[in-house]
């Protein structure tokens, strides 16, 4: 069947051609098209959360006492200056809505050089229930991409993550982001060395709205990644503290399966749920429904040090 063979050969060449063209179109589309036409590309270098700056800083940081991992509750919740006052060198490696699938990658990249004595891993129920897209594109956009990024994109099987990764590879290939620098103060946020993001006191507070109930079921992909992380930390003989950072009472009450989640986390080792430990004021200690104000951070960090490090 020479005609069929010719057809298959043509299809093969066309697919090769299309692969190359796909990169070209992606590159042009992401650079020149308005955001509303970029449905499946989420490349956001230097976006909220200072992931870019944090991941630049982590590359020059070594041997810390405490490493913080987790979502925005982490990078807005653990202030390295407070820990320094208590004689602890710390680094905050939180990122926006960081899910275990992304924490796993960050640990693979940076655990060895950070060499922490203790890891404080902030666990947030929705991140374990999440598809992990928001966090994956945050890390893809703001860090160097390697085989681990490819593995992550494969695991997530999301076209948006795949496109963002392809675009990031293109950018890295031509050095488009080489000279990029992120402003250290953006509106009411300031980046504090050590990975922390401080919300300035004068920042307008968002109303703490009544939350409709969140009905989450854990995502098996995230649970598997979470268990890999725990195993890896234990294998490296690093002290692990799991905790839930405080969120407003209204938001906390909106979650289902709270007790079940606490029980599950306790099963992994040392665990604190600061929503149960602290009695914070929704309007005083928070600037929105789930992020602490600086006053809240002070209370939270002191309590953590008292409970976990001064025993």
């Amino acid at each position, binding site marked *: *069947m020479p*005609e*069929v063979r*010719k*057809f298959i050969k*043509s*299809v093969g060449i*066309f697919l090769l*051609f*299309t692969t190359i*063209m*796909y990169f070209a*179109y*992606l590159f042009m*589309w992401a650079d020149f098209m308005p*955001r*509303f*036409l*970029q*449905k*499946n*590309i989420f490349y956001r270098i230097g976006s909220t959360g200072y992931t870019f700056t944090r991941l630049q800083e982590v590359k020059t940081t070594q041997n810390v006492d405490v490493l913080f991992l987790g979502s925005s509750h982490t990078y807005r919740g653990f202030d390295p200056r407070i820990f320094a006052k208590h004689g602890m060198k710390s680094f905050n490696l939180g990122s926006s809505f960081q899910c275990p699938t992304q924490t796993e990658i960050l640990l693979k990249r940076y655990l060895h050089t950070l060499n922490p004595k203790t890891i404080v891993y902030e666990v947030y129920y929705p991140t374990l229930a999440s598809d992990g897209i928001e966090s994956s594109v945050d890390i893809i956009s703001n860090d160097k991409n390697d085989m681990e990024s490819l593995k992550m994109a494969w695991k997530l*099987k*999301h*076209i*948006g993550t795949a*496109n963002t990764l392809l675009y990031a590879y293109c950018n890295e290939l031509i050095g488009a982001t080489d000279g990029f620098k992120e402003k250290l103060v953006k509106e009411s946020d300031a980046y504090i060395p050590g990975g922390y993001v401080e919300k300035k006191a004068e920042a307008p507070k968002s109303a703490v709205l009544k939350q409709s109930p969140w009905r989450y079921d854990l995502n098996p992909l995230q649970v598997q990644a979470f268990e890999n992380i725990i195993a890896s930390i234990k294998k490296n003989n690093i002290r692990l503290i799991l905790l839930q950072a405080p969120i407003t009472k209204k938001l906390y009450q909106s979650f289902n399966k709270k007790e079940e989640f606490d029980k599950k986390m306790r099963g992994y080792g040392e665990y604190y749920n600061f929503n149960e430990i602290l009695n914070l004021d929704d309007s005083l200690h928070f600037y929105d429904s789930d992020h602490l104000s600086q006053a809240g951070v002070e209370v939270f960090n002191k309590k953590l040090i008292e409970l976990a490090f001064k025993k």
Partner: protein
Amino acid sequence: MLFNSIEFALFLPIVFALYWFATNKSLKLQNILLLIASYFFYACWDWRFLFLLMFSTLLDYFTGLKLDQVTNRRNKKIWLWISITINLGFLVFFKYYNFFIDSFAQMFSAAGLHFSPITLNIILPVGISFYTFHGLSYVIDIYNGKIKSEKSFVDYAVFVSFFPLLVAGPIERASHLLPQIKKERTFDYGRAVDGLRQILWGLFKKIVIADQCATYANLIFNSPEDFTGSTLIIGALFFTFQIYGDFSGYSDIALGTARLFGIELLRNFAFPYFSRDIAEFWRRWHISLSSWFRDYLYIPLGGSKGGTWMKVRNIFIIFLVSGFWHGANWTFILWGALNALYFLPLLLSNRNRVNLEIVAAGKTFPTFREAFNIAITFTLTVFAWIFFRAEDIGHAFGYISRIFTAPFFPVTVFEGIYQALGAAVVIVFFMLIEWKGREQQYAIAKLGFTWSRPWRWAFYSFIIFLIGMFMETNEMPFIYFQF
């Protein structure tokens, strides 16, 4: 297994390779392969209903043989009605049982009588409306002496269950498809490339147009009380493009896939949104179903012959049945009735066969009058789609009344409204391509034929890129799978 799934992307090349490399020496083997592949394709959805498909196939196969054997007209009629009754019996049971029971209960209740019906949790076997109609057309054609019965069971079974058309059509005719199944097929490079091109365009329609529109149409239709009148109109427009992209996209993929195996299926869509009147619309929308009803219902009822009353009756019957075929819901019946009302003035004034050719053939732009007629027809169609999309009649009338009673402006800001703007831009691109290619079998059939190969390929690659840029991560099922 959906056409827009990874499974199908693996299934199709495997069957293609086996068909042209392993079984190409024997037509019989090729047909056996097609039958196995088709049954596998169907079983991927729910293997239990494979037995129903097989039973339906056997029933019509043996009925066909019997119809040819018996010479007595009365006995022929008995065999015909056995087949019709059993075929429609299954269809009515699986598709309409609960609808009839609920409707009776409501009727009794309105008359002040209490009646607690037993409703069943029935799963609708995918494609049942399509393969039942395949079988029916086959036995009716034999009964009417138009065709002879098929002796080879495999060939007949392939006619009923050929996987590209099995679950959502086009509704084939034995006189068109069976001769192709029985004839030796040789690979034609140009036709195969054309098939791939049509698959590509079908995927674009489904993934980029229909799935995008579905997100916003669903959002707006699910809670019309949250939106202003203008937003509700936008919701209806999104659904209009959703259903066209979804169903004509499916048909394009089916036709393109069949072409890869050297088989031509009936054309199902011919740019219906460029129609200048409703009669033209119905000659261009779901052509295989419209022509089925024309040949097996409308004409036997007397068609447009006879007096005015007869014409009106026949038109209403065909549109109501067509609406009911789509689903067990009064909304579909009302949708059919509305289209009958649109159609009647054209029929009664003998203007239903004025616009037979595609609009502005050989020209770039339509005349002002043509554009005006297209706009009117399109508006009527959009209005009718509201009934088609609504959950029930109350929902449909609530939606329509809100368009006129709620504040018209501004367009309600909803989550994802900027992405909706993106979808609107893509629809404009899509309609421009459709307009450009409206004289062809499908929009991109000849587009770029005068360009050099790299440019043509760059265009196809761009379509693939748009699919990647706008696709949903989860596969979205086709609307017509539920019919």
